[in-house]
């Protein structure tokens, strides 16, 4: 057992079907367009592609369909199929959580850490609708928890150091399980100073500090049933956002749940889990550390969510069914106080999220069945009802400045359906899927009040009258695999109507000093987004393996103008060496020039770049205790670069040497 033994396996497409363990477990399932990123230290192999104490963001970034939008060195925002937060569903163990920051500085992935997780399930498009309505896809962060199958008792310690930013990481973990109980407890601490971009250029306000503690406890209460309780507390302080005009003095989350789980392999009802959960997030944005601001301001935000789900797995001959009935109630409030230079003047106060209460309830069902020996079909459906209420009169009055007849209540129905077909014969595999999905506008899109977006330099006003965004999608993939060579090509196409985006409104005056004006969230008739990638893996020998990936995306609106934040041609190539307990890799990744940028939305041309990385890891055993060390260099040639996903072209990290050490006592 090595700590945070991270086997990051991209189980995308059919490659995964053929080679992953998951398939062995559940062989009737189609897992096209699903990736499982393994974050825990249970399934050990030396296939580490990420440093064990890497951030959850670094893990996610390895996914083929995820890109990470960066505003600094912390809390990157995941995008699936080039679609960001509002268009994707992100859950923690099926629990809905919503960030409390109006400026997307706290994607919910920032409220967990690798110490909490066992794996991350990434699903593209409508396959990701299991836990909530989505357009782009779904990410479910699975918490690490024991089971009652084995006797486990171990304690792990980990420590990491990185030269760039003088980053220090320490973590400890305790795992216990027997046939009646299990306990998983962990704590992690991270601290980083400002990092340096290529050429030793310090990026000011890129520091952060955070800790996270979590405990999962399970108790068996009868032959097949168990009660499991979870508590996670995550707190980050002094987080700099160099790409923005404000930093975060504190971001904290308390995430709790209790569930009843029943498993019976002899029954048609294989698994039944019912969970009640509650989480509360406080996010305090301020600019007290910035010397040159035209006016000082505080922008705290709060988001509380209460919810439950009941998930059932039903197994019948040739059918594998899954149902999820879920509901949640979220309360989102954010405010902004600006302090005038004249201390005798009253503070300027506004509600930027008017205490929006969202009540969602929905049902999801899927059926995965074998048509014949070569082909399978899967059908998924989600229907949901959502009601939004503006609970704060101050906030309602504020929005009525723009929408005089606005009612404090809104409701909408949401439908997501998809169907996938998979055909495999010998070394080839083909799959295709078709889907339709809808999503409700987010709190910001519906009810935001003068939210400044530094990306395009506009203040944004929400629009409560937006229609649901609707997406029609097509996916197809072809894979080939033999003993030496695996190859795959995949394409997904989204036609999204009533696409929500901000449009410049000439007759409204900006609020933020220096902003170019006001944009109102409106709907474009339609946009199209195309994502393609080609992957290959060649095994030279038992010790050498070469992997490569090329991706290309294109996003256009109904006027054939480019959409923002769409990845240019990008590539990755890795050479792996493995012998006994030694594992080494050398890789390069990069992107071509971003020709298809969107100047309308504040983008400029991002240049091409290539960076090189190398790492080596080794396992030592002493009795049953294990010692694991991994070290490497990132951005070996100290290249100064930024990618299309870097907010305001904030440059990425320059050369970084890291060491991670794990020690597990059994």
């Amino acid at each position, binding site marked *: 057992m090595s700590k945070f033994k991270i086997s990051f396996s991209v189980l995308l497409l059919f490659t995964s079907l053929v080679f992953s363990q998951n398939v062995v477990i559940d062989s009737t399932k189609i897992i096209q367009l699903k990736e499982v990123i393994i974050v825990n230290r249970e399934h050990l192999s030396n296939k580490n592609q990420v440093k064990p104490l890497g951030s959850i963001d670094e893990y996610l970034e390895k996914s083929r369909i995820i890109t990470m939008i960066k505003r600094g060195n912390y809390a990157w925002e995941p995008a699936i199929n080039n679609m960001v937060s509002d268009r994707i569903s992100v859950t923690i163990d099926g629990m809905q959580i919503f960030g409390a920051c109006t400026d997307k500085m706290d994607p919910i992935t920032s409220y967990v850490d690798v110490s909490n997780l066992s794996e991350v399930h990434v699903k593209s498009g409508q396959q990701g609708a299991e836990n909530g309505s989505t357009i782009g896809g779904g990410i479910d962060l699975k918490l690490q928890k024991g089971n009652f199958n084995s006797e486990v008792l171990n304690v792990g310690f980990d420590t990491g150091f990185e030269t760039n930013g003088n980053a220090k990481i320490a973590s400890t973990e305790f795992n216990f399980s027997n046939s009646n109980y299990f306990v998983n407890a962990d704590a992690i601490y991270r601290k980083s100073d400002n990092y340096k971009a290529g050429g030793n250029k310090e990026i000011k306000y890129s520091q952060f500090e955070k800790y996270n503690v979590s405990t999962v406890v399970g108790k068996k209460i009868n032959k097949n049933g168990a009660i499991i309780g979870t508590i996670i507390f995550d707190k980050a302080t002094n987080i700099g956002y160099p790409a923005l005009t404000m930093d975060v003095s504190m971001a904290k989350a308390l995430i709790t749940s209790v569930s009843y789980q029943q498993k019976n392999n002899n029954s048609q009802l294989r698994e039944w889990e019912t969970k009640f959960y509650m989480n509360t997030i406080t996010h305090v944005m301020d600019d007290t550390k910035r010397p040159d601001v*035209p*006016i000082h301001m505080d922008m705290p935000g709060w988001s509380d969510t209460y919810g439950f789900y009941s998930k059932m797995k039903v197994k019948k001959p040739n059918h594998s069914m899954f149902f999820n009935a879920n509901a949640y109630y979220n309360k989102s409030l954010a405010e*902004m106080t*600006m302090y*005038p*230079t*004249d201390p005798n*003047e*009253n*503070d*300027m*106060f*506004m*509600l930027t999220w008017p205490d929006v209460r969202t009540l969602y309830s929905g049902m999801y069902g899927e059926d995965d069945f074998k048509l014949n020996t070569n082909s399978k079909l899967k059908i998924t459906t989600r229907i949901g009802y959502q009601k939004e209420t503006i609970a704060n009169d*101050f906030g309602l*009055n*504020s929005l*009525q*400045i*723009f929408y*005089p007849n606005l009612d404090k209540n809104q409701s909408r129905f949401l439908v997501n359906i998809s169907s996938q077909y998979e055909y495999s014969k010998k070394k080839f595999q083909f799959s295709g899927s078709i889907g339709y999905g809808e999503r409700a506008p987010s709190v910001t899109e519906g009810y935001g*009040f*003068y939210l400044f977006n530094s990306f395009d330099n506009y203040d944004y006003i929400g629009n409560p009258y937006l229609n649901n965004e609707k997406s029609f999608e097509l996916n197809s993939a072809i894979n080939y695999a033999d003993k030496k060579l695996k190859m795959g090509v995949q394409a997904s196409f989204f036609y999204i109507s009533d696409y929500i985006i901000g449009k410049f409104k000439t*007759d*409204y*005056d*900006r*609020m933020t*000093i*220096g902003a170019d004006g*006001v944009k109102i969230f409106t709907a474009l008739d339609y946009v199209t987004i195309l994502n393609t990638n080609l992957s290959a893996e060649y095994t030279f020998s038992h010790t050498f393996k070469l992997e490569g990936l090329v991706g290309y995306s294109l996003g256009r609106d109904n006027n054939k103008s480019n959409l923002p934040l769409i990845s240019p041609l990008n590539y990755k190539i890795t050479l792996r060496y493995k012998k006994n307990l030694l594992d080494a890799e050398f890789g390069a990744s990069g992107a071509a020039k971003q020709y298809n940028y969107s100047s309308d939305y504040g983008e400029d041309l991002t240049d091409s770049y290539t960076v090189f990385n190398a790492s080596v890891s080794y396992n030592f055993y002493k009795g049953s205790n294990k010692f694991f060390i991994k070290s490497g260099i990132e951005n070996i040639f100290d290249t100064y670069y930024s990618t299309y996903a870097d907010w305001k072209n904030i440059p990425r990290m320059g050369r970084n040497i890291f060491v991670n050490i794990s020690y597990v006592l059994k």
Partner: protein
Amino acid sequence: MNFFKYILPAIFTLVFISCSDDTTDFGPINEVQDLIKVQEISNDTHTIEVYTKSGTLVQGYNDITIRIKDKSNQEFIENAAISWKPVMHMTAMMHSCPKSELLKVADKQTTYNGFIIFQMPENESEGWDLTFNYTINGISYEAVDTISIPQSTKKTVSVFTGTDGVKYVLALIQPQNPAVKINDMVVGLYKMESMMSFPEVENYTINLDPRMPSMGNHSSPNNEDLTFDLNSKMYQGKLSLTMTGYWKLNLMLRNQNYEILKGEAVTDVNESSSLYLELEF
């Protein structure tokens, strides 16, 4: 929380029910409940009580309620015909200010209501007095006393000479309690016909452009210019305030031919109009 949500109202209800006997008032009717007494102005026979919401008189617009108490029997007069005259005694001259009539409040027995717009504050050597002339059952009376009109911290009234050579008084009447919303805005506009006469000016237009000087002088959306309302004889419009704080309400006064009499448009180079009002909340 839920406990308090449900239990507290129940407790209050009980308290109120049990107390209700004690609070029943069998004394003389009180029609000034939500008002605070500013001062009393007396003569030999009567005491005139002057009330406002805040308990003070201010430079600018004042909504004033009075009642007249008969000193002989302590009862309030219900049938007076009354007029008032505010006068500013300056070292070199004296003048009055815009005001309404003082009329009996509909569906009230004892109170009379009107407004006065004090366009300037008192100072050490100069000050205001207020005279009441009233008739009860055919007999005329007069009561007079000095009143205190301190300077307002914010500009709520403006005295200026238009390009037409006329001297105007413009005062903010509403909103008295501004909020982050679209507020109903009311402004009074009066012409200084003589030292003692300030009639309403009708059918002009007042352009409105609220700004926040402390935040780069930004404006707000969906304001409506002020136009004359025949009923109230005042100018009505919509004032949108997007946040709390200090707002400068830049104005331009236009006559019936839409010619500018006073004020300038706010632009990048011109931060504010010479005709403006202020509010802060």
